[in-house]
């Protein structure tokens, strides 16, 4: 098959364009003011500047970013479970500067025992449902959240499904190899 380049498309150009800056310019977070903030060592394939923020400084840093850095668009809150590492959880925040269109990613490391982080609901109203979702699916509590309830799962659900020690097949049915029959039958009831 012959390959002909048609039109004016330049995929090479579009490929490395999407994020405006490959690494964090020093002005994003004032290092002298927030000495606890450090860049994240993980490879960021999208080139978004990523910082690890101590949980105690989170509200300060985010309100600084919002009020002085122009990061006014609240984008996303989620978490990653790094079991069996400690600190086990990592909160991941995405904010966007408007109208500079500069993205930033913040991470907060959270211990596995009684995980809790300060809530961003006082700064961004949109954080409300996102933090409820993380609470629901990871079991991380948010201090200062006005309405911390489960959002996706039923209120009486046991466990937090997105934790890595939560079985893919449900809370009472541990993972089995794919082609193995279950002794208790398909519906989990013990056989007579």
């Amino acid at each position, binding site marked *: 098959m*012959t390959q002909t380049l*048609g039109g*004016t*498309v330049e995929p090479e150009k*579009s*490929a490395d364009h999407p994020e405006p800056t490959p690494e964090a310019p020093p002005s994003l977070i004032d290092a002298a003011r927030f000495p606890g903030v450090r860049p994240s060592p993980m490879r960021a394939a*999208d080139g978004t500047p990523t910082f690890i923020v101590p949980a105690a400084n989170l509200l300060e840093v985010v309100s600084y970013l919002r009020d002085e850095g122009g990061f006014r668009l609240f984008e996303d809150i989620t978490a990653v479970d790094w079991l069996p590492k400690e600190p086990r959880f990592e909160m991941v925040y995405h904010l966007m500067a408007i109208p500079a269109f500069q993205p930033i990613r913040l991470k907060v490391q959270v211990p596995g025992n009684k995980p809790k982080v300060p809530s961003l609901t006082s700064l961004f109203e949109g954080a409300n449902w996102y933090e409820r979702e993380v609470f629901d699916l990871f079991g991380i509590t948010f201090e200062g959240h006005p309405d911390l309830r489960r959002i996706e799962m039923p209120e009486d659900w046991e466990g937090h499904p997105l934790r890595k020690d939560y079985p893919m097949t449900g809370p009472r049915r541990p993972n089995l190899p794919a082609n193995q029959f279950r002794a208790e039958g398909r519906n989990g009831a013990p056989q007579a």
Partner: protein
Amino acid sequence: MEDLQIKERWLDDDEDTYLKEINDVADPKKELMTINMGPQHPSTHGVLRLIVTLRGEEVVKCESDIGYLHTGIEKQAEGKTYNQALTLTDRTDYLNPLINNLGFTLATERLLGITDKIPPKATVARVLLTELQRISSHLVWLGTHAMDLGAQSTFLYGMRDREKILDIFEMVSGVRMMTSYIMPGGLYADLPPGFDVKVAEFIQYFKGRWPEYHSLLTNSELWIERTKGVAAITADQALSWGVTGPMLRACGIAYDIRKVFPYIGYETYDFEVPTAQSGDVYDRFIVRMNEVNQSIRLVEQALNRLPEGEWQVADLKIVPPKKYQIATTMESLIHHFKLYTEGYKPVAGEVYQRVESARGELAYYMVSNGTNKPYRMHIRAPSFANLQSMGPSLDGRANFADIVAAIGSIDIILGEVDR
């Protein structure tokens, strides 16, 4: 007097006294009534449940209850290889499967580091198909939104024209909705013969039809009465809520991922980002109507530059070999086997890939730990944030019938909200 106070109430007010008053339903003097709307209701566009507190016709508080369509897609993806997880992305936003495929695909390609190796035919076809998808999604939005507000005929016309777009998707991928056609490394299969003719025919047809939709609604007095000034939010509120897409652009902020962080070559296309000012239901309507015009332009441009050639990268570690190769060469057979049993292993890292869905900023946050399955796949669903802003935009400022207008203007997809 009391009514006036409630009218002025907005997001900044004291939450405690507010909730106390609402919970004080037992007091007959307050005359509040709490009613339940959904989760099975024709106007909630799926399984959305609303708990509405009313004083007469006036909405005092509108709370959304979601989770009825939670299918654990983020958890399921952790147990699947990248190619298997692709099929889950169709099921999140089921009116928008190709754009969801694209978000997942671009994120995975970033992790693999093959973003710049995608052949031009695949890149152009991605633009063409996702813009057709945007039109089809907006047609469903328009039809259902108008039908909720009493304009039945728009729904019939919208579905008629959407079906023609779904025919094109069926032509390329074999299925109308759950396409999984855009995949890491390019496209699932080559574009079929006659594809460009069919798209050109559709565009020719649709350009004639589109003004009819405008004539049905845009200047209709009934339509304006029902939508103008309803559920308006300001730009600052929208940013704080994380509202994106047509809802944010209706507030006057031209935030479109296709312009701001161009992907699949959007910077080489000629299109505009429609905006409006007041952020109410009517302005969201106008923004989406104008977006369809831009999508038509984009489809035409993509069709004109659609090149011949390969539709997948040449790397057999990422895309399956052709069927005739499997039958003739040993290496292809091994590659085929390895790809479908083990998959590929991106280098450890993370990526937050934004794409402009029909509803707003759709983003895939993926974390790889170097194995063949995504360690974490989080979907930043635009409907989730947009729906969250709906309750506060109505509280104390709307009548009961406005709720239906507000739901329609958000264009929620519960599959995406609950994931």
